[in-house]
C-alpha cells in the first residue's frame, strides 16, 4: 500500500498529445476514481502509471519512489483490465498464481495466497476451470483476484465492470467497495460511469481531453461542480442550465432571465463574483426543482418518465424546459399545470463565457 504522485505528466500517442501535463496526488489507502467520457485519456493515464505507456515528460512516484523509468514488472502494481485479460491456456488457479510463480515465491506461500484470494472472491470451487468456462462476473472476479494476490502497492482498475450486465455490475460494485474497506489498499479506478464513480470513490477526479477538471469527494464534485462540464457530466437526469444575467436589486444581487427574477442572497457564491451585468448560467439539479403551490415558476408537465421509485418530469415554461423529480403519490400526470421554486441555496452559478463556477 502506498501513495501515488503524478507530477506534470505528459503523454503523446501517435503524434498526438493525449495528456498535456497532469498532476495528481493520491493518498495511501484512497479509492480514487478517474471519471470522464470515452476517449478522454483515462486508460492512457492508467497505462502510464503502470509503465505500459512511455511518458513524454513528468514524474511518477509510488510510495515516494520515483518509478518514472521503471519497468511494469518492478512497479509492484496490480491491474484489472476491461476485457479481463485472463490467460486462456491456464486454469483459474494458474491465472491467480502466475504473477507469484514468475516472481518465484515459495510454493507454500503461493498456495496460501491463492487460497485466501479465492476464498475472498468466492472462487474456490472454480480453481480448476479454464477462463472460457466461466461467466462474465466470474471472469472479472478472477481478474480482480489475480491483481489482489500480488499484494501490490497500488491497484489499478480500467473500467472493470463495463462489460457486465446492470445487476451484476451493481453486485460487483458493492463487493469492490467492501473489498477496499477490508484491505485499505490504494486504488485508482477508471470509469465513464458516474454512478460507479459516486458510489465507490473516496475522491473523484473528473477528466476531459486529458485535463483534470475537478478533484474532490463525490459530494463536492456533485454539489459544487467546478465548471459546466463537470456539472453536466455528473447526475442523471442532468443538471438544468438557465441562461441569464446578474443584476442588483433592493435586497442584494439577483439572477434575471426571461420570465424569471430570483434573489441570490442565499446562493452559495462569494459576493465579489456577483457583478451586475455579468452573463451567467444558473445550474439547478432536478431534485432541487421543488414543486410548490406558491412557487413563482409556472409550468406544464410535457413528459413524465416513471422510474419506479419516482418519476422524472419535464416542465415546460416560458423560458424553456426544466427536468425535475416528482416523488408525490399518486404521481402527477402529463399535461397538468404546476408551480415550482428553484432551491437557490443548492444551485450553482457559472460564468457564461468561461463556463467556470462563480
Amino acid at each position, binding site marked *: 500500500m502506498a501513495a501515488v504522485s503524478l507530477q506534470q505528466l505528459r503523454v503523446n500517442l501517435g503524434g498526438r498529445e493525449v495528456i498535456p501535463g497532469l498532476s495528481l496526488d493520491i493518498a495511501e489507502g484512497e479509492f480514487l476514481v478517474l471519471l470522464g467520457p470515452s476517449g478522454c485519456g483515462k486508460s492512457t493515464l492508467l497505462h502510464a502509471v503502470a509503465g*505500459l505507456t512511455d511518458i513524454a515528460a513528468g514524474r511518477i512516484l509510488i510510495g515516494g519512489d520515483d518509478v518514472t523509468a521503471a519497468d511494469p514488472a518492478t512497479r509492484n502494481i496490480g491491474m484489472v483490465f476491461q*476485457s479481463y485479460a485472463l490467460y*486462456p491456456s491456464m486454469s483459474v488457479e494458474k491465472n491467480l498464481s502466475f*504473477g507469484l510463480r514468475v516472481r518465484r515465491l515459495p510454493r507454500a506461500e503461493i498456495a496460501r495466497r491463492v487460497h485466501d484470494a479465492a476464498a475472498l472472491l468466492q472462487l474456490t470451487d472454480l480453481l480448476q476451470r479454464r477462463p472460457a468456462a466461466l461467466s462474465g462476473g466470474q471472469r472479472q472476479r478472477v481478474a480482480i483476484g489475480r491483481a489482489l494476490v500480488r499484494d501490490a502497492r497500488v491497484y489499478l482498475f480500467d473500467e472493470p465492470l463495463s462489460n457486465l450486465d446492470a445487476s451484476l455490475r451493481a453486485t460487483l460494485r458493492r463487493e469492490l467497495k467492501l473489498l477496499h474497506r477490508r484491505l485499505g489498499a490504494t486504488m485508482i479506478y477508471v470509469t465513464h460511469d458516474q454512478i460507479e464513480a459516486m458510489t465507490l470513490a473516496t475522491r473523484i477526479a473528473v477528466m476531459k481531453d486529458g485535463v483534470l477538471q475537478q478533484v474532490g469527494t463525490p459530494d463536492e464534485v456533485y454539489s459544487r461542480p467546478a465548471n459546466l462540464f463537470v456539472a453536466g457530466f455528473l447526475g442523471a437526469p442532468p443538471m438544468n442550465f438557465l441562461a441569464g444575467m446578474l443584476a442588483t436589486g433592493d435586497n442584494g444581487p439577483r439572477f434575471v432571465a426571461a420570465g424569471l427574477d430570483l434573489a441570490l442572497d442565499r446562493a452559495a457564491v462569494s459576493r465579489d463574483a456577483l457583478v451586475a451585468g455579468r452573463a451567467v448560467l444558473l445550474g439547478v439539479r432536478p431534485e432541487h426543482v421543488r414543486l410548490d403551490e406558491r412557487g413563482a415558476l409556472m409550468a406544464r408537465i410535457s413528459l413524465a418518465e416513471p422510474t419506479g421509485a419516482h418519476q422524472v418530469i419535464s416542465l415546460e415554461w416560458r423560458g424553456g424546459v426544466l427536468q425535475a423529480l416528482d416523488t408525490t403519490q399518486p404521481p402527477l400526470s402529463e399535461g397538468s399545470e404546476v408551480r415550482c421554486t428553484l432551491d437557490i441555496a443548492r444551485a450553482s452559478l457559472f460564468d457564461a463565457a468561461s463556463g467556470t463556477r462563480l
Partner: protein
Amino acid sequence: MNRSPLAARVGMAAFLAVAAAFFLLPLYVMLVTSLKPLDELRAGALFAWPLAPTLAPWRTAWSEACTGVACEGVRAGFMNSLAIAVPSTLLAVGLGALNGYALALWRVRGANWLFGLLMVGAFVPGQVMLYPLVRALGTLGLVGSLPGIVLVHVVFSMPLMTLLFRNWYASLPTELFNAARIDGAGFWGVWTRVLLPMSAPMLGVAAIMQVTGVWNDYLLGLVFAGHDFAPMTVQLNNLINTSTGTRQYNVDMAATLLTSLVPLVVYFGSGRWFVRGITAGALKG
C-alpha cells in the same frame, strides 16, 4: 432470376464433381499404373483397374531403382528429406514466431524498417538470390552439407514465417500482453509462458506450410544439398531420368507417389487443424 435453389445446388455439385475429377483423375492413373506389371502397361488401357495388382514396382522404387550410378531406390532420398525437413521446420517456425512476437508486441527500434525489408524479401524471387547465396555458403564451406541446406531453407522461409506470426500476435488482445508484463513477466516470460501456449493453431499451420514447402523443394536441394544430402525430389528426378532399357512407368509412378506421400499425409492428417488455424484469428480472446 427464377432459378430454383435445387437447380443451383445440382449445378454446384456438378461443378465440384468436375473439378474434383480434374484433380483426382491423374492421381488415379498414377495409382493404378504403379500397381500394374510392365506387360499390362504395354497393353495400354490407361484407366483400367490392374488385372494382377502388384506391389513390386513400389518395392523397386523404394529400394532398388537406379538413381544415377547407385541403384538403391528413393529410400536414401527419403531419409535425406527427413533430415532436412525436421530441423528446417523447427528452426523456421521457432525463429519466425520469435521474430513475429518481437515485431508485433515490443517497441523494437527500427521494427517497421525491419518488417518492410522482410516483406520485400518475401516478394523477391528466390532464384535471384541463388548465385550470391552459393558464393556466400561457399565461403563458409557449407555447400553440400546438412547445416548448409537447412540454413538456406530457414533463411528463405523467414519473411513468410515472420509475417504469419506477426499478424497472429498482433491479433491477440494487447491487454493480455499488458497483464503478463504487470504480473512480472519479461520478454521471454511473456512469450514462452503466456503467448506460445495459446499459439498452437498458428504453430500448427506454420509447421505444415514449412514441412510441405521444404519437402516439395527441388531447386534449393539440387543446388545446396550436394550429393550426400540430395532430398527425395532430386533423387526422384534422377530415377526417372536414368534410362536402363525400357521405361518402367510403373516404378516411376510408385516413386513419385512415395515422394509426395509426406505432404499428402500432412494435409490429410491435419486438414481440420489447418482450417482451424486459418480461422483462429477471428476468434479473439
